[in-house]
């Protein structure tokens, strides 16, 4: 009992203004909680979530083909489990041990397989991209954009720190212009103007255009994060590599980049989280991802005005993904700093 009392004294009532703060916070908390509980139990109508649950997840993806998405999910879960296992060095299964060195290649190969499973063709019945909706589209867009913007960002960062003035200035110009413009402007550019830049017979899918916009945008920010890491590498590392007779590309790939990227993992994961959240803007250029499907559900006559329920629900989904990414990044950082 005295233990709890000393805890209370130390953490809540150490002096008069701390006690005052505690009381104010308690009153505020009780007021908020009471409001939320009353609203959630008496006024909110959660039917809008129950009825539309599958719409939130998969949108208008044909229900007979859901098994393909479950298969994709199974592939990703298996690969992630093995990757995490390999990373933590707790390989209990021999299979995991066997394929650990090939993991990055397997991930790379799984990518077209996943796209084939979702999109169909080659024996599977095709599902056009305007039917990929909801959380499915959000995750797909985020994953593809993250994977593509990473190498582009690294190249831009290398270009910006290059000692060739022309290359450097091209990269600076690109990075600074893109970072000076709002994302919604870039997405608009990608949706409306990208087709104008291509020959008339080239038809770009709406999803492809959106990914192009996200990658063009995210790569510029990624470049700045990587540049921070590049600046943290001491000259001695490069000079030592030169002394061993490595040429510039080999020095960059084997000496500079591994150290630079490790130094900026938190910033890069932060960028990924930002990109994940930014996919919600695609609803403004006509894509029906998670936020887009929420808007279309709210347009149904029987669910008009149920904004709070729907937005809280999809907010929770976004939050779960973003928060687990930031937790994972913190663990990764700890792991690498050991």
């Amino acid at each position: 009992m005295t233990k709890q009392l000393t805890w209370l004294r130390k953490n809540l009532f150490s002096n008069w203004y701390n006690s005052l703060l505690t009381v104010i916070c308690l009153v505020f908390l009780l007021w908020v909680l009471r409001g939320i509980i009353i609203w959630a139990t008496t006024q909110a109508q959660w039917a809008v979530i129950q009825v539309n649950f599958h719409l939130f997840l998969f949108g208008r993806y044909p229900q007979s083909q859901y098994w393909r998405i479950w298969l994709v999910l199974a592939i990703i879960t298996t690969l992630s489990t093995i990757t995490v296992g390999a990373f933590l060095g707790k390989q209990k299964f021999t299979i995991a041990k066997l394929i650990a060195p090939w993991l990055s290649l397997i991930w790379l190969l799984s990518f077209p397989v996943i796209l084939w499973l979702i999109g169909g063709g080659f024996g599977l019945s095709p599902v056009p991209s305007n039917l990929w909706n909801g959380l499915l589209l959000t995750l797909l867009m985020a994953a593809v954009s993250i994977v593509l913007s990473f190498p582009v960002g690294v190249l831009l960062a290398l270009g910006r720190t290059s000692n060739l003035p022309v290359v450097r200035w091209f990269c600076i110009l690109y990075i600074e212009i893109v970072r000076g413009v709002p994302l919604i402007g870039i997405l608009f550019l990608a949706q409306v103007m990208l087709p104008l830049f291509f020959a008339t017979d080239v038809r770009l899918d709406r999803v492809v255009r959106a990914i192009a916009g996200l990658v063009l945008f995210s790569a510029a920010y990624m470049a700045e994060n990587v540049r921070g890491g590049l600046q943290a590498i001491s000259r001695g590392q490069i000079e030592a590599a030169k002394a061993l007779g490595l040429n510039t590309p080999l020095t960059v790939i084997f000496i500079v980049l591994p150290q630079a990227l490790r130094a900026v993992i938190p910033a890069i994961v932060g960028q990924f989280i930002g990109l994940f959240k930014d996919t919600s803007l695609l609803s403004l250029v006509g894509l029906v991802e998670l936020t887009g499907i929420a808007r279309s559900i709210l347009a149904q006559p029987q669910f008009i005005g149920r904004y709070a329920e729907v937005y809280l629900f999809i907010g929770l989904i976004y939050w779960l993904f973003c928060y687990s990414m930031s937790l994972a990044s913190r663990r990764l950082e700890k792991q690498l700093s050991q």
Partner: protein
Amino acid sequence: MTNTKPPFWRDDRFWRIAGQLIAVVLALAIVAILWINLNRNLQQLGIQFGFGFLNQQASFDIGETPIAYQPTDSYSRALWVGLINSLRIAVLGIVFTTIIGVMAGIGRLSDNWLVRNIMLVYVEVFRNTPLLLQLLFWYFAVFLSFPKIENQISLWGFLSFSQNGITTPWFNLSPEFAALLLGLTFYTGAFIAEIVRGGISSVPKGQWEAARSLGLKPSIIMRLVILPQALRVIIPPLTSQYLNLTKNSSLAIAIGYPDLYFVASTTFNQTGKAVEVMLILTLTYLTLSLTISLIMNLFNRRVQIRER
């Protein structure tokens, strides 16, 4: 001993020049191809490049006009109204988000367990959900669910909330403006809180102890000893948050607040002048961003330690 020169492809100087030449040729080729395609496409659509449309009559209404504007005015006047609306949001947003962010950042380090954890929850909730979603929530779930103006909620007699927004004796905020301001402020504030917390934690503990042993009060220590030192760490990332806030104000289009992007988008829809509108938009936002960067860099130079 024969002193043969190495072949040219082993020569660093050759690659320095060749690399740049390749870059220039590639860039020129890409730009040329894009430009030719653009011209051909615009010709097919029957659109002429030019800024003449700016003087034509806009003939659309704008919900909030800080300066006089009528639908009979020109597109340039409409864009000007949009820019002023964007600036209003950006300036007020930067002021409020700084207040909230600094308070939350200091609160995260409070010795009071409740304060610390409320601020933690605030930061984690607002940082990990999309800004667009928060704006939609503020606008549709909060402001549009307020009672009608006849039975408005009144706080202490001078602050009242209704579907018409926030009303005080001095000014009236439209629901669009209020939702955008609140959304941007709380979202950016969560990021600033973490920056402030990082900055304050970067000040060595000895500074606290030294100040305390001089008999200074905690509030004075914070203001005169800790914050000036923390500012050096805080200002560069704070600048990018201000830039983010300014650019994010373009999400106003989702809730119908007529900022620059909103007006530009309407202009494009009516005239089809995608390239011109995009150019105006890009240049304006770049100017805004560069101005904020410049001001913050000047400020940054003032707070940095001057060594010798």
